[in-house]
């Protein structure tokens, strides 16, 4: 084996070309890791919304809460079944909620408006959704015009800040009294107010959009679904809460994922060619050295291995730089419309060990593929001719 010190030394001598090759690979890794982290962030945000043992009831054919309307009278029927979990006091853990969208002025844009989900919630919302909890301020009092906001949209829209207020209807401002977190789910991009306040403000008297319940266990779902959908006149559809939200994230996550992979594929071809050019040049300028190594008795195989190793070192370095840069994306907040709700959701770039491994593996793959042909050429050199060379 040719010692690694030789490769390290030779990379050091050709600092500039080494740096350009490293930078090329780093850029590719950065884009790939960024896209994957965003996809993971979207899946986590929408995937962690909703409980596995929860169920959501909407009007059949509606696809989403926003376009669904259920009579308030049906809520009682939905909640009274034996599959629904009850609190110690015997009250059903479930409630009818009204989901609407409001156009708010986005801070930092000139008069730009964007849609935000407003959810009218019942007073037992903190029991029905135990993953949500107030992190600043206090919960909104039931039956008042108070509202609480999700942590992720805090400060992003006009009036969406503790102590400020939003006009849901002319002359009826809703005062923001608290900020809540909900395990990174899409609820954190919503505004929650009293169900009756939202209902009157948006002209939805006597209606709810959906009914969310906690089931006794995950296994109770089938019985629950059968009971809800049995009465065709009600025209209702029950879904596992987690599946409902996962379905909503499907298109968005797929879209970003495909775009990211496509771009990364193009990029990696570019970076591979870059690595190849560097390695070819490095081989041709070292013909004499290689000839000497061969003359000293190193086999073709060890020359091949040595050059492959060098390519791997370059790509590992590039991968590490790219990964490090992509981790910095953690502070970036990426807001985007969710096609399913027509309102904005804020995502974060979510680094996972798996993504970093994928990024490093692709970096090494680029190095190996780009370095292989040059390394073969180095191994094929005839020692005598190589030493005689220019």
């Amino acid at each position, binding site marked *: 084996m040719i010692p690694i010190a030789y490769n390290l030394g030779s990379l050091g001598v050709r600092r*500039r*070309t080494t740096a*350009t*090759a490293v*930078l*090329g690979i780093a*850029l*590719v890794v*950065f*884009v790939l890791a960024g896209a994957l982290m965003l996809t993971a962030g979207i899946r986590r945000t929408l995937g962690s919304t909703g409980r596995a043992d929860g169920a959501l009831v909407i*009007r*059949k*054919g*509606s*696809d*989403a809460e*926003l*376009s669904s*309307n259920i009579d308030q009278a049906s809520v009682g029927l939905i909640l009274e079944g034996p599959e629904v979990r009850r609190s110690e006091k015997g009250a059903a853990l479930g409630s009818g909620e009204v989901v*609407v*969208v*409001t*156009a708010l002025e*986005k801070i930092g*844009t000139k008069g*730009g*408006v*964007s*849609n935000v989900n*407003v959810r009218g919630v019942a007073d037992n919302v903190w029991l029905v959704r135990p993953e949500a909890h107030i992190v600043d301020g206090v919960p909104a009092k039931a039956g008042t015009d108070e509202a609480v906001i999700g942590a992720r949209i805090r400060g992003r829209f006009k009036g969406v800040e503790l102590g400020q207020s939003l*006009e*849901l*209807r*002319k002359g009826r401002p809703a005062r923001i009294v608290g900020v809540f977190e909900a395990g990174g789910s899409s609820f954190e991009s919503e505004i929650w107010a009293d169900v009756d306040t939202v209902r009157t*403000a*948006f*002209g939805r*008297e006597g209606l709810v959009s959906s009914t969310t319940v906690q089931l006794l266990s995950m296994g109770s779902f089938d019985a629950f679904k059968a009971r809800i959908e049995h009465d065709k006149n009600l*025209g209702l559809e029950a879904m596992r809460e987690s599946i409902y939200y996962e379905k909503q994230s499907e298109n968005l996550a797929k879209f*970003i994922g495909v*775009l990211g992979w496509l*771009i990364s594929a*193009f*990029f990696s*071809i*570019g*970076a591979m*060619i*870059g690595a190849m*050019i*560097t390695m*070819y*040049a490095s081989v041709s*300028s070292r013909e004499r050295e290689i000839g000497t190594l061969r003359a000293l008795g190193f086999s073709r195989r060890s020359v091949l291995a040595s050059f492959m190793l060098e390519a791997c070192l370059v790509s590992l370095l590039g991968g590490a730089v790219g990964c490090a840069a992509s981790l910095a994306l953690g502070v970036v907040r*990426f*807001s*985007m*419309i969710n096609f399913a709700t*027509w309102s*904005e959701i804020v995502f974060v770039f979510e680094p996972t060990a798996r993504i970093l491994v994928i990024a490093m593996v692709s970096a090494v793959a680029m190095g190996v593929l780009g370095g292989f042909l040059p390394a073969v050429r180095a191994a094929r050199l005839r020692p005598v001719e190589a030493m005689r060379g220019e």
Partner: protein
Amino acid sequence: MSIPGLAARNLLRNKLRSFLTVSGVTVGVLAFVLLRTVIWAWTAQSEDTAVDRIVTRHKVTFVMELPMSHFDEIRSMKEVRCATYQNWFGGKDPSHDQEFFATIACDEKTLFDVYDDMETPPDQKKAFLEDKQGALVGEKLMQRLGWKLGQTVVLQSQIYPGDWEFHIVGVYKALRKAVDPAQVFFHWDMLNERRPARIKDHIGWIVSRVAPGASAARTSLAIDEHFDALDVQTLSQDEHAFQQSFLAMFSAVLTALDTVSLVILGIMMLILGNTLAMGVRERTGEYAVLRAIGFLPRHMVALVVAEAAALGFVGGAVGLAVAFPLINLGMGRYIEENFGGMFPFFRVTPSAAIVAMALSIALAVVASVPPALAAYRLRVVDALRRVA
């Protein structure tokens, strides 16, 4: 032999490297053009709008509707030439469950005044006006769903229960990109009859055209001011602003794509710069000889820059030669057919092609600056003595 000739010859000396570099630039140009096309396809609709068309909707939310009286009031304003009202129906074809398209209940009598950029043969227009269950369908949607003129279709709605039967009596062609070429229009009365009492006689939004000489921006403000004192306030935007605010919801993605297309240019420059620097380093001795026989430092610079420009030009040309057929004939058709709802137009624009070409030459020239400087500063004696 001229300097450009010599530069071109230099490129042919290491054919493998030049080939690799040109391939690198080709891939870069291809990716760049593709990204620009995605961005263009996304924003094209907001660039080709009717400047005098205004959309008025509920101030607070699109889920709430306006009273019918708002329409009459807008129509009677002196700045407004004509107006029409519409409602979102949220229709879907049960046999094409995954296809998204806009289904709109429209006031058929005023529709064509406001949307004079929707072209329909006069007999079909007449048929649409006369048939209470008539539907006017965009040409693109007809193709996408395989519908035929004269056919009866049953749609369902995400909002309203039941089956809705329509007769396709007309097909329109969008003359402007801002007009979605894949919508279904039907008579508003048909929707209103079946709506529950609490939302009867309410309209989703109002579209109006301003009178000649009036400004769209000022008329929008005038409309909103007019309703400000009333219970239901409005938000009016001209068509351009309306499309822009829709795009703003995707702005983060557009910014990301912009950033990524800059990164591509960075990678392209790295490849080019690397190749050029290696060429210059290897030819140090030759440059020294040229200098020794009387060529000036600026001639050396010209040599390097000409070589770079030639590389950039060839890479750009090959890239475009691949990108045009790939996008316009292959991908573009596929995307227009399958994702027409989002990207009704997916074509390489001439401006994107020119920009890509200019950039690949310009980047090559910029990338040649460090090696060109090295060639310029070359000290003949040292260089001749140096063993390459």
